[in-house]
């Protein structure tokens, strides 16, 4: 909630300057400020990653590895060098590497170089993997990771959509039945959210895959993948059930409880009493007077939840053998493939920023304070 007032401030100042500004312009301006801020965050996150990685000289090694490979290839392919004896060739390569390193400034102090690394990372110029290859056989870290991104997005997108709407309707239902058995049971179940999704994932695998043998242990589709798109989708859906359920169980009770509390706070407002007195239906009241003012708070809470959930991707995908970027991260740790680890952290920083940006956008759409440009009083 503190976040909400925070965000409203710049637009409140703007409102004093030009009162006739349109909603669209205000939202655009608000989003502009957020984009700048999030870009700044990504830059800091990536820079931190580089500093940590390079304390042991790992980024340097990625860079010089890439240079060495490129030059060796260049020399090997050039027909004019083909006649040279191996010794002379090696000398030539060493010479060219030195020139190239000087050109790229690898011999400069780290502080200066780190900005070069930063630019590379931000433009997703992530270097070449040491051990891993993409399914298409490329060693480009960017390709390895981008190839796996859709799998991650499918699972997390679906799980989070379900989680959001389920918690919302569950929360609404609880606020209607305040004090009932269901309500108290949910409160009692909120501590379950202290365990992460992968933890429930292990239990689900144990029950449904190992003991009951009705759902697969993991993976994304059956092997071999079905040719028919409908069968493919069915197989994908079957494999999605357990990971999605794990994500939902890990958060839904605490989430529904939080939303319910927001709803209860807003449904004790005077204007709700007024609406009741006017004889509006419960559904109408809920939609227009309770849900609407609560949404900004709910979105802020959900954004915070998403940030933590994203980070669980690494381990959840590992547990479910899901071929996404989280699992790539795990594989990279096992192979000690530094470029992939650094590149993956960069991608994570981007993903978090994009998630927050999208939620900010929805926030701007639903929060009247952004649209109208007033402070709290104008709600």
């Amino acid at each position, binding site marked *: 909630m*503190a*976040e909400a007032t*925070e965000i409203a401030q710049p637009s409140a100042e703007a409102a004093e300057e030009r009162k006739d500004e349109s909603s669209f312009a205000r939202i655009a301006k608000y989003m502009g400020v957020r984009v700048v*801020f*999030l870009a*700044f*965050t*990504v830059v*800091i*996150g990536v820079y*931190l*990653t580089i500093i*940590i*990685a390079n*304390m*042991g000289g*790992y980024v340097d090694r990625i860079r010089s590895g890439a240079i060495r490979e490129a030059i060796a290839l260049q020399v090997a392919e050039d027909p004019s060098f083909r006649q040279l004896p191996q010794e002379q060739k090696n000398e030539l390569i060493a010479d060219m590497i030195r020139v190239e390193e000087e050109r790229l400034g690898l011999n400069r102090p780290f502080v200066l170089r780190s900005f070069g690394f930063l630019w590379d990372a931000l433009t997703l110029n992530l270097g070449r993997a040491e051990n891993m290859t993409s399914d298409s056989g490329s060693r480009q870290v960017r390709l390895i990771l981008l190839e796996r991104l859709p799998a991650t997005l499918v699972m997390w997108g679906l799980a989070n959509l379900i989680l959001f709407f389920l918690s919302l309707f569950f929360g609404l239902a609880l606020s209607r039945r*305040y004090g009932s058995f269901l309500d108290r049971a949910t409160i*009692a179940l*909120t*501590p*379950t*959210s*202290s*365990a*992460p999704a*992968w*933890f429930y994932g*292990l*239990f689900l*695998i*144990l029950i449904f*895959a*190992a003991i009951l043998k009705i759902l697969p*242990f993991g993976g994304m589709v059956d092997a071999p993948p079905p040719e028919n798109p409908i069968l493919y989708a069915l197989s994908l859906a079957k494999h999605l059930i357990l990971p999605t359920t794990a994500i939902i169980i890990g958060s839904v009770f605490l989430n529904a409880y939080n939303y319910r*509390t927001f709803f*209860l*706070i807003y449904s004790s407002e005077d204007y709700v009493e007024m609406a009741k007195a006017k004889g509006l239906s419960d559904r109408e009241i809920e939609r227009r007077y309770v849900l609407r003012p609560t949404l900004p708070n709910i979105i802020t809470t959900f954004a*915070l939840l998403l*940030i933590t959930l*994203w*980070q*669980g991707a*690494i*381990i959840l995908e*590992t*547990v479910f053998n899901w071929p996404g970027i989280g699992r790539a*991260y*795990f594989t990279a*740790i096992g192979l*000690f493939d*530094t470029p992939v*680890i*650094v590149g*993956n*952290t960069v991608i*994570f*920083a981007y993903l*978090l920023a994009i998630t*927050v940006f999208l939620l900010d956008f929805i926030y701007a759409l639903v929060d009247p304070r952004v649209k109208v440009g007033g402070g709290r009083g104008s709600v």
Partner: protein
Amino acid sequence: MSGFWTRLKQIGRYPSAIAGVAIILILLIVAVYAIITIPYDEAIRLWRGGEEVWYDSPKNAQPTWTNLFRRSKLPATIVLDSRDGTVEKSFEVVDAEKEMTDIWFAFTFDYPYDEFPREITLFFDAEYEEKLPYISLTWLTPDGREIRVADFSLSASGTYRMSQDEKLQRRLDGQLPHVGLFADPAGSPDSTEPVALRGTYTLEVLALTFEEGSDVDAELVMYGQVHGIAGTDHLRRDLRVALLWGTPIALAFGLLAAVGTTITTMVIAAFGVWFGGWVDETIQRITEVNLILPLLPILIMVGTFYNPSIWLMLGVIIILSIFGAGIKTYRAVFLQVKESPYIEAARAYGAGDMRIIIHYLVPRIIPLVIPQLVILVPTFVFIEASLAVLGLGDPSLPTWGKVMNEAYNGGALYQGHYYWLLEPAVLLMLTGLAFALVGYSLDRIFNPRLRGL
């Protein structure tokens, strides 16, 4: 602060909080017990020890108490040693000229189980100069049969793996030795599966030595299918060690991380509010940036590149959480407290900035902070477990997460060794649940805003 204690006493009204406190107390007792009975170095030695430490315990054996839920009882491990005085040894000189002596002893034991042991191994301990003793083994069953097990010259290692003796297997009509030796010849009336015969068995060892003063001792290990209170893993290690030692580690890690992050966050929020202006502004912006930093990937990177030591992880977590989300909440409260008359009074008598922050501002929000602190504990316990499950557990200490990692990689789910994964998981869940139960109850006591709802 008196209000604080009276409020704290209300915790007795919440049954969930009492349950939580009880679980935490039990965990604390277990932690103390673990540290006292298995000292730190001993725990590390045991857990990193290989076959030389754990040679007499079975691989992947379930906990003994699982027998309570089974109709046909699984055997526990039986260890008999001729050196511990329970076995009578007789010496008989066969040929004094050639210095040949017969050493005879027998292992007699009761076998009250319906299933078969997993393996049988004899570890010989022989004293000799050059000439290896010659061993003959005979097996006596409760129904009076006598089975010749083996005759062999002792090998240098002194280990005889009865279960892998192919000659014996042929003599037992192709049954695996550890099955054939215990099988009831009558069989079972309603199945073709062999059934174990209960009763008293004897293994006679006759050793012929060829040197003066030569001696032979043996240790008979019949590896069971259940072992101890917690069972064993794929390296024969008793899981009890890891489960016991995991408790103090999990509690210490969770509590230290929660206390460390909460205190730093609280103090920084107080500084920001007290000095206001650009200090406050900077802290606010840093917090927002910090919120979006990927904590787990950064921890993984540190663990992979430097050292996955649990204490380094703790340090990194605290550093990255200094500007945590809590700052926003605490700031809102500090802003109100800052305007209170007693702060005004403190300022009037000339109290310094530090004095006001540490002595007057910070103590005021302790009631608000305590529930948050307790709720945070499980988060960190699970972060440690997450890192361990990813294979970045502390290199030397046994933790719950490491057991889960080994269980998962060892195929516990595919091979049906569920206990291996479930035991640490249940302990983790209990710990998480206990702190969450107490935390949420405290939150309702100290933040009455929620109590009405």
